[in-house]
């Protein structure tokens, strides 16, 4: 892992990681909303209990802002054909998420389109407790 100086990005990661270690409910995500993010992969964390996609998305002013997308555990992802290098830093992808209700930069994974056009997940799926295992 390449460690860079912990800045706002590090704090953002911490904010989204801490609830994951509590057996949290998915009520924090808006199951009725879908949001599409187009951006560049900063990091893909292949970890238990939840994997994470950190993606830089340009804001209205064109400045990249980091979003954190929560997926299921690697075991479930692997059964869907994911491997640790399915997403690598620098990849340009389009992600579909159920956004956080509080408006902060994060969401529950629904689908992601890879640079070669492959779609993983289900952009039309409903939210379920097993995020990423659809």
């Amino acid at each position, binding site marked *: 892992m390449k*460690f860079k100086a912990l800045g706002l990005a590090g704090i953002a990661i911490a904010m989204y990681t801490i609830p994951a270690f509590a057996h949290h409910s998915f009520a924090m995500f808006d199951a009725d909303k879908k949001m599409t993010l187009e951006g560049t992969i900063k990091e893909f964390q*292949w970890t238990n209990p939840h994997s994470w996609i950190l993606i830089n998305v340009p804001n209205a002013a064109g400045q990249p802002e980091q979003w954190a997308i929560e997926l299921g555990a*690697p*075991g479930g992802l692997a*059964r869907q054909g994911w*491997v*640790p290098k399915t997403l690598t830093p620098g990849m340009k992808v389009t992600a579909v998420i159920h956004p956080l209700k509080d408006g902060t930069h994060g969401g529950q994974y629904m689908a992601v389109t890879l640079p070669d056009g492959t779609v993983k997940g289900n952009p039309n799926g409903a939210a379920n407790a097993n995020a990423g295992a659809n």
Partner: protein
Amino acid sequence: MLDVMSVGETNSFSSPRNPLRTFAVVVALSAALAAGSAASAAGAPAGQDMSGVWWATAYSPKIPIVGGGDLPYTAAGKAAYDKNIAGLKSGELIDAARRFCVPDGIPRILATPYPFEIIHTPGQTTMIYELNHAIRVVAMDKPMPKDEELIPYPYYDGHSVGHWEGDTLVLETAGFNEKTFLDSTGAPHSDSMRTTERLRKIGANQLEDVVTVHDPEMFTRDWSARFVYQQRNDVRLQDYVCGEKHRDISSVRGVKGR
């Protein structure tokens, strides 16, 4: 107990004062002790015991490939190596094993200038390294887990299975993550690397470990490196904590003043 004699028994064979009985008991005990020391670890066949503390007498930051020279990189491997060298030099890439004491991984840990210990228990060989207090757990006589079992759990040290071939301990390891270097110069490997180690006692007090690296993504062919360790059962492993003082390893040839 030699003195199991009922009250009233006279000088029969069971009496400890019968010299023939004493002689027979001594012979039986000696035979049992001799058999015991040959059987060694947990009743294993002779020659299948590498238990104890081992410590290299020489160290090299660059992995010593058999035949010498540079590793046989593919184009992708060479590019990855150049990127690592540049990153380590500029500080953009951190040697996490040294900075944060995460495991060195295989084969880098085999070059350790600190002692390590091998422990045999039924069904498992365990190697404890003083460096970073890394532990390798080797399942003995079990098949390597399938790829789908390894993919969700990429380990720094990989997942190891082992078996004996006569006096040689064969370890196979797969299921690595990509967070480790092959050596202290930053040599890269992919997460599909597989390694095979052949450990064998040589001479009176030495152990050799020949590791073969299979990583077609990074290298044009399989290649091997050889490490030799001295038995040091006069040594006990010490604490090893990031950022705190470690044992003096200046006696290890090739170690620069630490």
